[in-house]
């Protein structure tokens, strides 16, 4: 087991009238290099779940595993864990506090106790990884950047500590379409080329679905569905009942199929849809 949970339950403010059970016996595991998606309606426990994976929240009961070992409460161990499991919060640019992009990205490596010359290479590599300029940009004030650039800097500020697992909460919230596709391009590269295990929480399946290996579906704190993307997305009715739906391209394929055309419905990317429709066209012309 690379990373996962076993019967993870979390209760906010236990023992008060405001007690709120956010997670109920959630069990799942991911292998190294997987691209996973956590979906579920608002308030279903997605954010609570991912905050357990790098030890920010402690389970009320149950366990969280990383590399087969249960996450404990030892401080040094937790710091080491947070280096290896990077977590990007929702709207991460709101956490900026430094006067330069450089300092912002250097925050994590400095906290981990690296020497300044090593920190510098780590910052440059992180900027390079997210595809940002490493000459002028590091000296600029983070608030001067465009929203897409800010988001990339926020990602770089977590990538700078060289995590093996990269967890993102609604990474595309508030981005324009080009920012969104740019970001998913980056995530794809990190996963496929650099071998990072990626876990994303999102409502927006359009860009994410085509990249995904595993899907976890949360509802009211319970893990109601988990498995390979293809299997989960075939539960169309159930996903609709949860208020989730499918990627737009998949919907189109379902629509075509309902019209009596012979197309596959397990299509999650524009490219796949284009190929499938071309095939259909070819058959019609024959």
């Amino acid at each position, binding site marked *: 087991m690379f990373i996962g949970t076993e019967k993870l339950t979390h209760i*906010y*403010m236990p023992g*008060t*009238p*405001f007690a*709120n059970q956010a997670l109920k016996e959630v069990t799942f595991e991911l292998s190294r290099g997987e691209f996973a998606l956590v979906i579920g309606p608002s308030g279903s426990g997605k954010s609570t779940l991912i*905050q357990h994976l*790098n030890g*920010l929240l402690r389970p009320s009961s149950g366990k969280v595993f990383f590399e087969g070992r249960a996450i404990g409460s030892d*401080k040094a161990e937790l*710091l080491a864990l*947070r*280096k290896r499991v*990077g*977590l990007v*919060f929702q709207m*991460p640019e*709101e*956490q*900026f*506090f430094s006067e330069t992009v450089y300092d912002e990205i250097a*925050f*994590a490596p400095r*906290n*981990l106790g690296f020497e300044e010359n090593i920190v510098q290479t780590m910052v440059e590599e992180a900027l390079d990884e997210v595809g940002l300029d490493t000459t002028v940009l590091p000296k600029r004030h983070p608030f001067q950047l465009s929203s897409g650039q800010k988001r990339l800097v926020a990602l770089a*500020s*977590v990538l700078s*500590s060289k995590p093996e697992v990269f967890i993102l909460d609604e990474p595309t919230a508030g981005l324009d379409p080009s920012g969104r596709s740019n970001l998913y391009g980056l995530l794809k590269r990190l996963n496929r080329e650099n071998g990072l295990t990626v876990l994303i929480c999102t409502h927006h399946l359009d860009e994410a679905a085509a990249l995904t290996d595993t899907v976890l579906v949360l509802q009211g704190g319970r893990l109601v569905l988990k498995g390979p993307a293809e299997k989960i997305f075939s539960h169309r009715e159930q996903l609709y009942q949860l208020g989730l739906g499918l990627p737009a391209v998949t919907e189109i394929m379902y629509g075509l199929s309902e019209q009596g055309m012979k197309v596959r419905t397990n299509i999650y990317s524009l490219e796949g849809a284009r190929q499938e429709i071309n095939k259909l066209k070819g058959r019609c012309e024959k």
Partner: protein
Amino acid sequence: MSRSITLGQYFPGQSLVHHLNPRMKLLSLLLVLALLFSLQSYAGLVVLFFIALILITTTRVPFRYFLRGLRPILYIALFALIIYFFFTSGGVVLLRVGFITVESEGVREGTFIILRLVTLVFYSLLLTLTTTPLSLTYGLSYFLKPLRYIGMPTEEVAMIMAIALRFIPTLMEESQRLMRAQVSRGADFESGSIFRRAKSLVPLIVPLFVGAFRRADELALAMEARGYRIGARRTRMYEDSIAPRDWLILAVLLVLLITSVYLGF
């Protein structure tokens, strides 16, 4: 998430005390406090104390919340007890250690003072535990209204207080979120020297301020868009009504107060 933070001391419930009009509750508390200090006899105090206990049971607020409320007065109470026990003379000598004596009059007066303090705290907690901070603010601002005639912007002050209250949970949630975000980037808010710890707060305070100012801007814009103007007369979404029972409680308390003052009870 927003439900996960307790605001003030309010403990939700459906009891009679919860449903009393907040303005009248405030007035009633004032009368009870006056009564507590005018009472001279043990009997009256004990009756008031038991009424407090009965009211506490009806609210269904766990008793430990009331005990917790006593903590701040613990030392004052202990101090008063020692002073009264050892330095008040009169009555029978109960205990003699060297030249220090504990006499019955001292014990009597000491216990009286403590019981009065505890009852006072219980009644105050009955108000704050059963009333939302927002209705408390509106209740207070109602009594401040006359100050308007000497040029105090009472409506605006009430608005400021209400907005401040409304944003306390938001800012607490925000600071928690920021703290977690920075901790997950390896920040440490707990260890190190005072200087280091103060420095480690920068990554928390800067974004918190930036966020607060952004929110304030957005709120001001939204309020203006809905026609908010300083000095304009405003009506309220929920007009609170004063039920006969509110008047009844107030009347009973007044009668009790007057009798206790006149008869020296």
